[in-house]
Structure formats: C-alpha cells, structure tokens
C-alpha cells in the first residue's frame, strides 16, 4: 500500500471558550515515526484525536494523503488509533476484538480468520486468540490493541500514550517492539507522549508542544542540541540557563554572565540573546581557576551511581553539574569552593 503523509494546516480547536490548539502547522512525511511531545494540557492528545475525528471539529485542514478529513466521521477516515487504556472490549474474545474492524468492513468470514491470525502472529500472541481481555496482562492487552488496529490496514497509525499504563521495564521492551512493528509495516505513525525518553528513542522526528502551539519540530538530536527556545531547552533533558549578554569583538564572540564572567562562544554561534544554555555534562568542576570558568560553591550532592550530580551556586544562579563517577574517587564535598569549567563548543544562546 502506498504510504500516506499527513499535513496539518493552521488548525485551531476550542473546547467552549478555551482554545486548546492555536494554529498548528505540521507536515509528517510518509512512513515516518513521528512523536508529539509535551506536558499535560499542551494539546498533543487533542491534536491526535482531531486527526482521528474525535472531539469537536477543528478549524483549518488536516490532510491525510490528499484527502482533507476535517468534518468526516471517525468511521470513514481509515485512521488506526491505539488508545491509552487499550479499550479492548471486555465482552469479546481476543479473536473477536481483533476481527471487529474486518467484520465492520463486511469481509467474508473466510478472509477474516487468516487476517486475524496474521495480525496476532505479528504481535506474537497467536496462542491467546481465545482468551478474554481480562485474562491478559497489561503488555499483552497493549499488543492485542495494536493488532486490532493494524489488521484493518489503516492509512496512518495513531498511538495515544500507549506505554503509560505499563511498568518501567515493560515500557522499554514495548517501545522497541513498537518501533520494529512500525518499520515492518512502514505505516506513517504518530506517537503521543509526555516522556522525552520515549520520544527520543522511538521517533524519526518529533514536535514539542506547549500551550496549544508547536514550539519546535526536528529530530530528537536537533531538538536537544539546538533548542529553539527556553521551553524546549528545559523540557528536553536538564538545562542550566544563565542570564547575561553577548559581546562581539571582531571575529570573537563571548557571553558575559550577570556576574561578569566571560564565556567564549564558538565561531558561527548565534550572537544575540540574553540566555546561554549549558547541559550538566558539558560542565566540569575543578579546583583551579581558568578561562571559561565560573567561581562557585557546592550546595548539594547526589550520588546516582554512574554519575554524581552537584548543585552549585555560580553565575548568579544554581547550576546542575554531572560528573562521571569512577570507583574510589570521592568527588567534592558540600560547601566546597570550586570553579566550573564550561565547555561552550555546543552551547546555545537564546
């Protein structure tokens, strides 16, 4: 089957007087694994549901392939959706659940059975075909819900927080399986999550949403390395944000913090903005002063195993620093006066 892309054009959506989506524009390529990432209330689930046809009709256009689906009934869209709660019907066996959509499409029984078997095979659960949903574990229910959706060969696959009801170890396993399945089927897939690790590990590209607005779109690495704004910088991983100003001196540019400490900026870096973003692993703690270093005092220390995380008062704020830990090395004590050496080669000024 030909892969379909999704184009979202200037989509607005309100629940009563609250505007939940405020002009969303987005293009998802055919066959792409795309994540909507954002905190709760950011509008990511609302956008997904609007694509599936649930909730109030949005303004704007949602194109699947070349077809504008806004205003179409959910049952005519041929969009597959997996629900956060899985929504397996408790009164039907696994087989009947998976076969439901095929029956609705008036397929002859002789064709339904092999297709259901193939779908169950795909998720490795053929042996559970005659069970009832309440006899399955969470992970199994999840996979049945997936089989039920892909068996009807939808044009796109929508996953609404599919891993949030699973425990941590199962979540890691399931997200690999989701990715494997997506690659195998080549289905254009949207994955809604509030968990950046899930989005980072699975998606080809992702969109970070906040307040009903898309903040940035790109590959996980692009978004982490070059966040477009402070929200994205803070939402993806831990970010230290120091206030100050950029000073340009010929070809050299440097960032001067509120406390007056200069940090040299790489060539070609953005030269306007009043904040610099430093990731905790790009700072090291030393005893001696040096270039690109800030004076500070260790406020707090957490031993995390592979790393030690310090909270250091420096540059007019509190800075998180991660130092890798090796056996027998004690690191610095709380209260110690230290210098923070910033590696600014990848620093972003916003």
């Amino acid at each position, binding site marked *: 089957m030909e892969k379909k892309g999704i184009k979202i054009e200037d989509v607005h959506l309100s629940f009563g007087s609250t505007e939940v989506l405020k002009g969303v524009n987005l293009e998802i390529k055919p066959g792409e694994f795309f994540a909507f990432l954002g905190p709760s209330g950011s509008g990511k689930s609302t956008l997904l549901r609007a694509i599936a046809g*649930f909730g109030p009709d949005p303004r704007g256009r949602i194109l699947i392939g070349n077809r504008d689906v806004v205003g179409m009934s*959910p049952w*005519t869209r041929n969009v597959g959706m997996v629900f956060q709660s899985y*929504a397996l019907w408790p009164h039907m066996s696994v087989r009947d659940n998976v076969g*439901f959509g095929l029956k*609705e499409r008036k397929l002859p029984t002789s064709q339904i059975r092999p297709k259901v078997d193939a779908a169950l095979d795909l998720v490795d659960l053929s042996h559970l075909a005659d069970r009832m949903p309440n006899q399955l574990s969470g992970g199994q229910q999840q996979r049945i819900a997936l089989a039920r959706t892909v068996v009807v060969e939808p044009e796109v696959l929508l996953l609404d927080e599919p891993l949030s009801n699973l425990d941590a170890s199962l979540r890691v396993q399931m997200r690999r399986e989701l990715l494997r399945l997506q690659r195998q089927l080549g289905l254009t897939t949207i994955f809604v999550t509030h968990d950046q690790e899930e989005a980072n590990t699975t998606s080809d590209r992702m969109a970070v949403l906040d307040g009903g607005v898309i903040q940035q779109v790109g590959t996980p690495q692009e978004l982490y390395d070059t966040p477009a704004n402070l929200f994205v910088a803070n939402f993806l991983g831990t970010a230290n944000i120091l206030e100050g100003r950029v000073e340009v001196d010929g070809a050299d540019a440097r960032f001067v913090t509120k406390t007056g400490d200069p940090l040299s900026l790489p060539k070609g870096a953005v030269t306007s903005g009043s904040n610099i973003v430093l990731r905790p692993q790009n700072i090291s703690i030393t005893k001696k002063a040096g270039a690109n270093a800030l004076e500070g005092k260790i406020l707090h220390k957490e031993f995390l195993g592979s790393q030690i995380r310090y909270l250091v008062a420096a540059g007019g704020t509190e800075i998180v620093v991660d130092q890798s830990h090796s056996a027998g090395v004690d690191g610095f004590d709380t209260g110690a006066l230290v210098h923070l050496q910033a590696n600014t080669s990848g620093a972003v000024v916003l």
Partner: protein
Amino acid sequence: MSLTSSSDGQRPGLADRLPSWLVPNLSGLHIIAIMIALLLIGLLLVPVAQVMIVAFQDPATGAATLQNFVDFFGSALFRESSWNSFYVSAMSVVVATAIALPLAYITTRFHFSGSILIQSLGFIPLIMPPFVGAVAMQLIFGRNGTVNLILRDNFGFSIPFMEGLNGVILVQSIHYFPFILINLSASLRNIDRSMEEAAQNLGSHGLRLFRRIVFPLAMPGYIAGAALVFIKVFDDLGTPLLLNVNNMLAPQAFLRISSIGISDPMGYVISVILVVFSVLSLWASFLFMRGKDYATVQKGGGGIAKRTLKPAEKALAYGTVIFILLLVLSPHIGLLLLSFGTIWSFAPLPDGYTLQNYITMWEGSKTFIMNTILYAGIAATLDVIIGTAIAYIVIRTNIFGRKALDYLATAALAVPGVVLGIGYLRTFHQFDVPFTGEPMASWWVIIALALMIRRLPYALRACTAALQQVSLALEEAAESLGATKRRTIQKVVVPLMTGGILAGFVTSFATAAVELSATIMLVSSNNDAPLAYGIYLFMQTPSGRGAGAALGIVAVIVVAIGTIASQIIIERDKKLKASSGDH
C-alpha cells in the same frame, strides 16, 4: 495466720470451677449477635421453613408426600395461573424495557436538556404502591376509560389495554421500569468513551455500534434490573387482586388461604413455587453477571461521549420522552383526578370536582393512618437498630458466623410478601399472646414484625454503607484514649453513622407504610389494618373509590416525602463528611 489455707487467695467462683466449654467467654457483641440470630431464625427462617414443610406434607396425616404438587399440576386452574404469572412477569420485563431503554439511551448518549428531569421523574413510579395506581389506570386506559372513550368517539375502535392480564402487565411495567432505567443508565455511564471510540475508529457507528459494543457492555446492569422486575412482578399480590385478575399464582395463594383456610396445602405449594422462582431468577442473573464487571471508566474518562442532537432528532427525542412520561405519570394524574372528582364513569374526565373525598377519607381512615404510623414506626426503628448491629458485627468483628447473619437478613429479599404472610399465619396460630390469650397470628404486633423483616435488607444496606464511611482509625483513636468498646460504639461510631441510619429509617418507614402483600394476609380486623389495606378496602366498592384515591394520594405523599428526606439526609451527610475530613 492459718496453717491450712492461704488466706490471700479468694475462693474460686462457681463459673471458674465448671469446665471452660460450658461457660464461654462471651462479649456483649457476641450476645447481641446471638439475639439477632435467634430473632431472624424465629421470624424469617422458621416461618418460611414451615411453609416449605407443609407443602410437602399430607394435610391429613402429616406424612411426607409429593401429592400436593401432583394435585397442583393436575389442576387446570393452577396450570393456567402458573403460566399467567410467568407470562405477565416476562411481558412486564419486555414492556418495562421498551419504556426504560429509550430514556436511558437518550439521557446518557446526548446533550439533552431534559436529562435531569427524566432521571428524577423516572423514580416517581416507585413512590406509589402499584396497586394504588391500578384503579386510576383502569379509569384512564380501561374499556370505558378516558383513552378508549376518545378513541371510540373519534376513530370507532378501542384498545384492550387493561383487559385481564394486559392490565396487570401495563400497571406493573409502568411501576417497575425504574429498576431497569436506574441500572441500565448506571451501566451506560460506566462505559469508558474509548470503548466506543475504538469501535468508531475501526469503522462502526450508529445502531450497529450500539448493538455490538454499547448494549453488550451495559448488559450486566440491564440483567440486574430485569431480574428484579421479573421477581417483583411474579411475587406481587396487590395489583392483580385490585384489577380482579385472580388466575395468577400470588392471588391464588391468597384466595386459598383466606377462603379455604390455613390447612389447605395449595397455598403452601404456590408459596414454594414463588420462592423457588425468586431464588432461581436471582441465581440466574448472578450466574450471567459473574465475571462480567464491565465498568470500564478510566480516571478522567467520564462515560460514553455525549453528542448534540440535530433539530429533527431533538424533536423526536422530546416526543418520545414526553410520551413516555405521560404514560408513566398517568396513574398519578388519574389518582389525583379521582381523588378530587365527584363521579367518574363513562366519561373522559370526572363530572365535577370536590374536596368531599378527602373529608370522607379522613373520617373513615384515621385508624388506618394511625396504625400505619405505629406499624411502620416500629418496623423501621427495629430495622435500623438491627441493621446497625449486623453491619457492625459483619464489618468490624470476627465473630463466628457473622457472614451468615448478613445473608440471613438479606435473604428476606427473596421471600415474597405472600409467603411470609402465610408462614406467619401458620407458625403463630398455634401460639397465644401472653396475658390476653388471643391467637398470636391475629395480633397486630405480628404485622409490625413482618414489615420489619421485609424492610430489613434495605435498612441493612443503608447502615452498612454508613459504617463503611466511618474510618476504623477514628474508632482506634477512641480506644487508644481509653474508651471501652461499648463507649466507642456509643460515642463515636453511631453518631458518625447517624446520616445513614436516618436515611435507612426513612426509607424503611416510607416503604413499609404502603406494603400490602404481607399485611393483607395478617390483618384480622379492620381496626388493625394499615393504610395500604385501607386503600384496598376502599377500592373494593365504586362509591369508595374517591376516598380510596384520596388515601392513595396520602400514601404517595408519605413515600415521596420519605424519599426526598432520605436523599437530603444522605447528601447533607456526604457534605459534612467531605468538609470535616479529606479522605
């Protein structure tokens, strides 16, 4: 100093010298549990067992026999009665479903401004004893009632709504459909919207979606409601009696006992059949529902998606709802008209209006009303006392057999009023009341006790719910501060349960006040009769119908006030608890 005995040791008491198994260490709660058990055995188990035994006894010799059942099924009248009872119950379920399904569907599925109205009006039939409405229904839907007169005058045909069994079916389904409505609506609301959305996502919609997903998921609630309707109709005595339909099981049992006497075995055989059917239908619905807890609402889910109606759909929905509500309210409207009417016969409406019926009613039924207050008061008071005690014993103690106590009290639900009445007659006619010497079976106290047993399951549920809301920690706090068990119950537990207990009292009182099927068996003289029996007496003569209707209105008002009061009490209690402790 004596050399022979130690002076500091006291002589052991008698109890200490007996073997320990003869003098078990009983706490106050144990004694209360035993007393309640004895009461339930004496007033529920023994009378029902008595009925069962007599059904299997040769009336002359007392030997065990199946002959009574052979005789029963040998009689054409009894075979017909059995079939009629079954047919009427089944058809009542069908008609009640036809009334309840659209209401439940419209209110839970759509944004419909009348939803609250329907949900509350849906309860109205329950606040009127069905037999009270029966006469009014006769005047509206009967052969010469309002509807048929209009039909005949304008279209030249009439519909036999109230002829024979049809009348019973119509009255019963209008009265009992709320059981289906309440249960079905609750089930529908408990379906998570993703259940429905998943089906839409896979290409299903409309009626097909309702048939394949929504209704099957609501099935457990529907079955629970339908089973209740079936049993209630199967056991009901008042309605067929008032509509003069005697070829059904409950009226036959009543007529055999009241006309032939308490030694006639047929009444007992019918009782056995009534009980067996009650238990079977409860069991069948239980079997069906086992493992089918489909309540699927997720946190933040909020039931199936509601849709806004299009104008044409809205008109259709309002039309359906108004039609059903008119039907449902027809007994009330009819009763009101009848109570204020002068003569109402062969006319769509009464000839004139008057207050005379209320005056006649008041003069003729002061005794009935006083008796009702006395009986229902005694029954409801005992119900909440026993209910509280059982609830406490079941939830907070590990007394041996406490579950059995709960089951025994609840078992009264499966015992039809007629059966309990017959059981009391049979059991207590052999005893005399102390001091006065009259036979116990015709003593008014027995009526109050029968009502108490009949309403105990409801009061017990209310008390159990109330106790479950009282945190165990509150009790433990009192005990750790030095209060004894008894003081703790008195000073902490019962005061905190007050709302629930009061609600239980009011419900028990209001419904006991209009109970007919057990009381009609036990009333031995009109002086001892309660209100429900009074209405029955009034309604026997055409001239008494107006006053009977007026008394019926009184009954409706009593139950309505009771229902509203218990709702208010429960709500206020909830608010109080919510504001005092946030857990």
